[in-house]
Every structure is written in C-alpha cells, then in structure tokens.
C-alpha cells in the first residue's frame, strides 16, 4: 500500500541551512584520472553543481543541489562520472515509495 506522510512530517519544511539533517544532496563521483576537463558536465548540470577547477571537473559540496538526474553521467565521453548518492528530502517534501536505484531493466 502506498506510503504516506505523518502529521509531524507534514508540518515541517526542509531547510537548506540544515544539510544532512533535512536534506541529503545527490552526489556524483568524478574520477580525476579520466577527466579531460572538457566541461560538458558543467553545462549539462541542471543545478550548477559541477565546476571546473584547474582543468578537472569537481563537485561543489555546498548549496546548489544535485538532484541526481545523472545527465552528467550520460554526457561524459570518458565515463569518468558515477552516481554516488541520490537526493533525499526528509520532511514535508520527502519522496515516497522509492526503491533501490537501477538502470533500465529487461523483464
């Protein structure tokens, strides 16, 4: 049966000031050895989360929120990017009924 929100969750809104507690940001792992610094992932990011530092892509760890769309993973020609963590909102905006991450499956 569908998961629902408890009253306690419904009363509280996530604050970006409490990262980790209210919100777990999505995260990708960028292999610096494979990265050529082409900057495509920086442009592909819907949240401005990736930046180029010294010709290597790097993830900002603070505010701009990675919502784990994996567009950077798809665009990287070097396969240097892997999804590490998926966005989690923990109060009112909590995603419900989510399972484990999977690529497209053939049933």
């Amino acid at each position, binding site marked *: *049966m*569908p*998961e629902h929100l408890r009253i306690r969750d419904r009363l509280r*809104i*996530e*604050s*970006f*000031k409490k990262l980790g507690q209210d*919100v777990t940001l999505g995260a990708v792992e960028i292999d610096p050895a494979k990265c050529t610094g*082409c900057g*495509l992932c920086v*442009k*592909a*990011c*819907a*949240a*401005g989360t990736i930046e180029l530092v010294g010709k290597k892509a790097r993830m900002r760890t603070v*505010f*701009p*929120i990675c*919502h*784990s*769309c*994996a*567009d950077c*993973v*798809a*665009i990287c*020609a070097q396969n240097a990017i892997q*999804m590490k963590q*998926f966005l989690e*909102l923990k109060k*009112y*905006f909590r*995603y419900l*009924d*989510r*399972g*484990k*991450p*999977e*690529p*497209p499956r*053939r*049933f």
Partner: protein
Amino acid sequence: MAEETKASVEKETKIKPPDSGAEFNEVEDLIYRRRSARFYKKQQVPEYLVRRLLETARFAPSSGNAQPWKFIVVQDRKMIEEMTRDVVAFCKLACRFIDYLDGWNPLKEWTAKLMQRLMNNLLHPIPFAALKLIAEEKLGLWHGAPTVIIMLTDKRCPGDPAVDVGIAGENLVLAAHSYGLGTCWVSFCTPLKMMPKWRKRLGIRYPYKLVTSIALGYPRGVPDGYVTRETSAIDWFAEDGTFKVVY
C-alpha cells in the same frame, strides 16, 4: 475501405510483443537514451524540422480528442534573450523576499517556508534552488537553445489540460531525439504569464494558459545515454486476488 482495414489488421498482428528478457527494441532504446540537453550549438533548427516535430505533437492522444494545446515557436534570438532577461529579473525579485540563504534573517526563512507550503509545486526545494541559481545567472533559462516552443493550454477543455499538453510535448521531444536534436523541458518560463508585456506579445489571455516550454536545438556533446535512477514502488493487485508490491 473494408479491404484496407483488413490489410492493416493483418499488418498489425505481425507485430508481436518481445519475449521475456529480450533486447530493447528501437523505441524503448530511444526512450531510455533521451536525456535533457543544456548546451546547444548556435545553428538554427530549420523550419521544416520544427514543423515536422509539431506534427507529431498534433497526433498525441488527448481527452475527448479536444487537442487543448497551442504552440508558440520562438526562433527570434533577441526575443528569447529578452524573455530570459525578464524571467531573471523576476527571479531576482522573488529572491529578495524568500532567499533565506544570503545573510542572517530569520523572517525571510519563515516567509519562504510559508510560501513553500502555499505553493508547494512552484516552490518545491528543487525549483526553489533553481530560482536562486537563475537569479544569480549561474543557470541559464533555455540554455542558449536557438528555438523555444512555448506551450499553452485551453482552459475550457475536458479533463486536465496540463496532462494533454504533457503527452503532446513528450511526443515532440521523443521525435526530436530520434533526429538527434536536443530538447529540455523548461517550466521556469511561467513567470512570463504574470507580465502584461509578455501576455500581450505572446497572446496569453483567456482561455489560454501558459503551461511550459521546450528548448530545442542541436546539442553540443552527446547528452544521451542510459542512467541509473531509483525505482518506485508499484502496488499490484494480481489476477488471483493476491496483493504484492514490486519495484
């Protein structure tokens, strides 16, 4: 006429669903590979291609076959820039009231959260963050796409007009992907409907409502590929009366 129908039925029956575990067919592959493009070449999309794409949208299913959509194609770069500028200005204004991350102001956070409760779709944490990014010009609106397709609905149609527009748009987007064009759904254009200038220029007035827009162009790099994402629970009432949850 009758013979034609019979022939098409025979043709249809030749197509069989795949066996369990079979390779993805072309359409499935197309769907799984499509990713949003956020970096475009300057090259304009020719008119015939855009027309061809809009034709796919025209044949989308809609409730009661009411076809409650209206498309506005904008290929005028100056106009796209102007719209972007105005949306950025709007986001900046909104941020002055609700962006609680700059500076120490508890009242701002309180206001922001109240607004988030009242407009939970518009100010969900993700668009909330995007609002700040657009205001700071760290995130483009249409990402420099040469063509923008603005989508309006007719409010008087049967059912939920936004659903019908969504279906039509997805037809267009998948067809565009099959041509190697890049697309990105951009609903951050909705502040335009609040500006009298754009309401007049785009002809947004009753019964039309601006819903969303699609950026279209030739992508730089290859944005497409399979990705991993979270599965979601599917409740299943089986034929034998049992219940299960699958992922």
